[in-house]
């Protein structure tokens, strides 16, 4: 009897999970479907779900009109660059907070997180002026720096949480064996925290890839990533929903594929230490 209830509950949870999953994925699916419609079909009412005249014309128009690969390459450089730079700074920072906490470590962590509560537009002008004066406007280097700074609190927080789960005795033992601080972080701590670091890396790549305030405001033609590529197909005076959907699909496809292949790693990392 107990097993029957448990099975029923299991089935219920599975169905609920599928419904929630599909509901979350539906807007993306709809975007992908719209990208294969004509502009007239994209606005038809009632909308057609699968039975319409499929066309790849929007993709060829988008490829013809925009330099997709330049935007794609900019996105790759900016998201990977800011992630690697962020990890280089965050790993030692999280190590010190997790294993050598000071009196105000918790306050410092909270302060770091509080910087995320500031609306970005509030600091747009000062940052724009600084970037103008140091020649970083419309450069990939500038965006790598600003996205690193924006995502650093999250990276430090995540790594701090993972590092806290690692027994300090192991690090102590490595020190007893004569490991230097550098060796301790690189050869002992980092390999043990690989799942956490990997999920932090993936999450940061996704955040940087999708960031659409700074990447739009600090770039023009040279360093504009895929967020600017999507924005170029949005129009308040003219119906270009099918082309906009094609551009959106092309922009999210790489990160969607990355997320799909790394989902186990991502989930494992995100739930690391969740159950004690």
């Amino acid at each position: 009897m107990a097993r029957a209830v448990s099975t029923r509950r299991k089935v219920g949870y599975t169905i609920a999970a599928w419904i929630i999953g599909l509901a979350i994925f539906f807007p993306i699916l709809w975007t992908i479907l719209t990208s294969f419609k004509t502009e007239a079909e994209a606005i038809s009412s009632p909308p057609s779900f699968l039975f319409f005249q499929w066309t790849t014309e929007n993709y060829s128009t988008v490829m013809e009109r925009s330099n997709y690969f330049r935007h794609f390459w900019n996105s790759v450089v900016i998201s990977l660059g800011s992630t690697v730079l962020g990890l280089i700074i965050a790993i030692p920072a999280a190590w010190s907070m997790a294993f050598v906490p000071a009196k105000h470590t918790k306050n410092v962590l909270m302060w770091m997180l509080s910087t995320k509560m500031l609306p970005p537009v509030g600091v747009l002008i000062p940052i724009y002026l600084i970037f103008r004066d140091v020649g970083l406007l419309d450069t990939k280097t500038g965006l790598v720096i600003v996205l690193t700074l924006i995502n650093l609190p999250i990276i430090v927080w995540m790594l701090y949480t993972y590092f806290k789960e690692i027994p300090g005795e192991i690090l102590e033992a490595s020190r007893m064996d004569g490991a230097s601080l550098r060796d301790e972080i690189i050869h002992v701590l980092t390999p043990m925290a690989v799942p956490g670091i990997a999920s932090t890396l993936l999450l940061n790549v996704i955040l940087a890839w999708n960031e659409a305030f700074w990447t739009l405001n600090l770039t023009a033609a040279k360093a504009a990533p895929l967020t600017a590529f999507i924005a170029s197909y949005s129009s308040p005076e003219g119906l270009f929903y099918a082309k906009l959907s094609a551009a959106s699909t092309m922009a999210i496809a790489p990160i969607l594929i990355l997320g799909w292949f790394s989902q186990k790693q991502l989930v494992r990392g995100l739930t690391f230490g969740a159950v004690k």
Partner: protein
Amino acid sequence: MTKTTRALMGATALCGMAAVAQAETLTIATVNNGDMIRMQELSSAFTEQNPDIELDWVTLEENVLRQRVTTDIATKGGQYDVMTIGTYEVPIWAAQGWLVPLDDLPEEYDVDDLLPSIRAGLSVDDTLYAVPFYGESSMVMYRTDLAEAAGIEFPEAPTWDFIKEAAAAMTDKENEVYGICMRGKAGWGENTAFITSMANSYGARWFDENWMPQFDSEAWQTAFSDYLMLQNEYGAPGSANNGFNENLALFQQGKCGMWIDATVAASFVTNPDDSTVADKVGFALAPDNGLGKRGNWLWAWSLGIPAGTDAEDAAKTFVAWATSKEYAELVAENEGWANVPPGTRTSLYENPAYLEAASFAEMTLESINAADPQNPTVDPVPYTGIQFVAIPEFQGIGTAVGQQFAAALAGQKSAEEALQAAQDLTMQEMQAAGYIQ
């Protein structure tokens, strides 16, 4: 001198020559609409004529573009050499000294050919600061078949009373046909633009000559009550969320009896590739209320050059080409006369080929000519602009007022409450900005 030294010197000289010969690059910020995209596609004709100039395009959604170019020009960021801006920005930016005056355009450009109202909207003290790429006003687009079935004959210049009657006669909610579609989505360029233009024709104004807000006037109350009545009785469901694109989709799907909106929409609704009612569309001037002012606006997407650009001459060459008669002919040659950017030049409206290809041409010209940004309403005002007030504070105030209008349309507050809230918030902002002591 060794061979190596000579080789190095030769290479250095070559590099220097190459740098001199390198093309100048213009970064052009533009909006995403059919005419602008077409210009981008045809720009190879310009670069062939000017091999020393290269073009880099930054295409953005209108609101993103506005935020982006405003930040850049206000901070002298120098990211763009040519900016696509509207009739709202030009007088404000020109007064700040942010734009290069365009008073030395070549004779063959024929600046006197620009439509007078458009030219006036882009000039400050008779100096032109941006050149128009396309201009628009607003007008009534209506379904000729529905009008005929309802026994209505549309005059060329309808009144609001006629519009009310026609909306009632054409509404058939059971078959999802709504008598009238109008903007309801909140935003200074959305419902505020429409309602302000409509209110002008009722004799309402944003401010009196002392910058005192006027939303508590009888004219505003009558205009806004009529707007709400039309939307609620004969409009599409959820009209508080409908802007230009949503209404365009409704009209193209045959769900609007009338649509009052930008003249540029005429080419969309008559395009058989996208519109199911392409051959059943008639045009009329925006309505009036017998007070001598019509409810139509004036807008021109224009090309301006930010002061301080290091490519001023190249930028002038480009903006002159993109808004020239020669460009219009290039579009006609490649895409047909109907696709030539409308509303900028008198000569276009004297061209029989254009008049034949664009059934809406005459009404567009009449609508543009009927617009007077210097005297937008019946009583005198201290500002220029028809659907906007050309002061820097207007974007914020206009959007906040638009939110009040949308709230009334959604039934969240009454017309009186919305107008009172608009009055209070405008007063507060104008006091804070120092217009009212």
